[in-house]
């Protein structure tokens, strides 16, 4: 009998510890989860609801069910006979955005990979300085950085002035308010997102492998594509995703450098909540953008899983 009693006391103590831990954890998590759930996740639900409503006359919504927002994305309703006619306007904005984001991703990769590799081969102390230099712009205001880019690429910007003074061109190159400007702006905005993950995967790379590669392949380009790139692949993929996703949803870059004429998805969505005042359509467009982003992440997760099972 005396043996049983302390055992049940011990069991009670174990149970009590577990309960205390659960309660403590719940209280500790409560503020962060409440704020994010209420202010970031709940609104997404509202957006889903709004996308199925009818636009209000002065912005906002009228509580009447409608799938018009999604229909409007692809078709235009003929005002006379009420038939649906295919409308490429919005689809082309999406395609343009995807194209620009892909282009910027490729551009950032071409610039970012060599930079990451260069940093990874530096001695440790220098690496930290380089990394700091790459990270710092990320923490400065994107609006101001884009504005600064606008200053140097416009017709009277220093790039044109220098090119003209050098006698390379006689009249200024028009870059600003073109797709090129948006493309340059996107690379410039998100370049650090490409460099950092590639650096992180290269940092772990054992460079004696590279040296071993010279024994086997003897050629720099071959070593690069057969040894280094495969090993840095996780970082390259992460970098591409980190550039593509914010590029796709960019707002400031096309707004300032595209002059508001060359729209991307982000501006189109914002417009629906401003001047155009079609909240349901804006909500639907935002959800389609989010679906695209989730699709990219899912494809990546799928590819990662397949890669893992191939290796295993």
């Amino acid at each position, binding site marked *: 009998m005396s043996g049983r009693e302390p055992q049940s006391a011990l069991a009670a103590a174990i149970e009590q510890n577990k309960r205390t831990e659960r309660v403590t954890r719940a209280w500790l998590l409560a503020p962060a989860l409440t*704020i994010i759930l209420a*202010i970031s996740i709940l*609104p997404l639900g509202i957006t889903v609801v709004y996308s199925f409503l009818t636009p209000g006359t002065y912005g906002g919504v009228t509580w009447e069910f409608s799938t018009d927002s999604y229909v409007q994305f692809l078709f235009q309703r003929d005002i006379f006979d009420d038939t649906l006619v295919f409308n490429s306007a919005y689809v082309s904005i999406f395609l343009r955005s995807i194209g620009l984001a892909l282009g910027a991703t490729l551009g950032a990769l071409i610039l970012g990979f060599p930079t990451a590799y260069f940093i990874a081969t530096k001695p440790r102390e220098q690496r930290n300085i380089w990394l700091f230099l790459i990270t710092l*712009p990320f923490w400065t205001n994107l609006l101001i950085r884009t504005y*600064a880019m606008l200053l140097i690429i416009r017709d009277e910007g220093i790039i044109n002035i220098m090119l003209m003074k050098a006698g390379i061109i006689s009249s200024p190159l028009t870059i600003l308010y073109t797709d090129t400007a948006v493309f340059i702006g996107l690379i410039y905005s998100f370049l650090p997102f490409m460099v950092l993950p590639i650096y992180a995967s290269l940092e772990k790379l054992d460079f004696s492998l590279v040296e071993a590669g010279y024994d086997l392949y003897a050629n720099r380009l071959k070593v690069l594509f057969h040894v280094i790139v495969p090993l840095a692949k996780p970082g390259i993929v992460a970098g591409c995703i980190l550039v593509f996703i914010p590029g796709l949803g960019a707002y400031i870059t096309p707004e300032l450098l595209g002059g508001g004429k060359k729209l991307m998805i982000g501006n189109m969505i914002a417009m629906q909540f401003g001047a155009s005042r079609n909240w349901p359509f804006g909500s639907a467009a935002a959800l389609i*953008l989010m679906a695209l982003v989730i699709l990219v992440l899912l494809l990546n997760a799928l590819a990662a899983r397949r890669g893992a099972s191939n290796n295993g």
Partner: protein
Amino acid sequence: MADPTTAMPASAQPRQRRRLVRDLKAMPGFTATAWLCIVTLYLPILVLIAFSFNENRSVVLWTGFSLDWYAKALENDGIRNAAWVSVKIALFATVISTIAATMAALATTRTKKFAGQGLVYGIINQPLMIPEIVTAIATLSLFALVKKVTGLTGIGYLMLAHAAFCIPFAYMPIRARLETMTLTLEQAAADLYAPPLKVFTLVTLPLLGPGIVAGAMLAFVVSLDDVIITLMIAGPGETTLPIYILGAIRRGITPEINAVSTILVAVSVLLVMLLFLVQRRMQR
């Protein structure tokens, strides 16, 4: 003095060998590309900063050094109000998000692994995973609904929205700090008769300090720099500095904007450099 003829090759040889090894790792054009990246990243900002000190109204031709535009910017009521709104929102968002993030970081590192931990990470990082424009219009929709139902208006909405997206930024360094802090120190305190609350206030909190400071600084910078969410949500009289700057750019380029922009960049850069130093101390 050693004989120069024998000293020479001895000192030259290892250097040559080292260069050979470095050459093996180096790829043609990579160094140039790295420098091109740095120039691309910094040249625009440097030009902007330089012209903020230009005496001339022109933002094209350099005529001489002057602080006039700073004086003008600081006298501008619109800029002063916007700066005050920005600071108010950033301070509120920093305090709320840092407290919430610290608590969440303690829950995810100082209690046993639990079912749903992945979901918790997902929720905390959610603001980072969704395009900002989506969060912005979604939050706008919610706030419009709340305003309609309650009739409440004011800057509180903006503050709350900022607090929400600052949480993941504050959470990152705090969690990282807690993960590198071994539990042994807390156990040692308990072993020396410190009850749980004393363990927290005398050991966990002081050691976590640098992490909390880092988290708060990140939250502050992120809040101060936000454009899209603020642009969509801000009501009349709630213009933050970035929103003021955006409006001014749309109206036309003036050296005054360059001056304000330089100040905002300087604040961010100073905070991030401070953060860098704090983190270096943390690593020791």
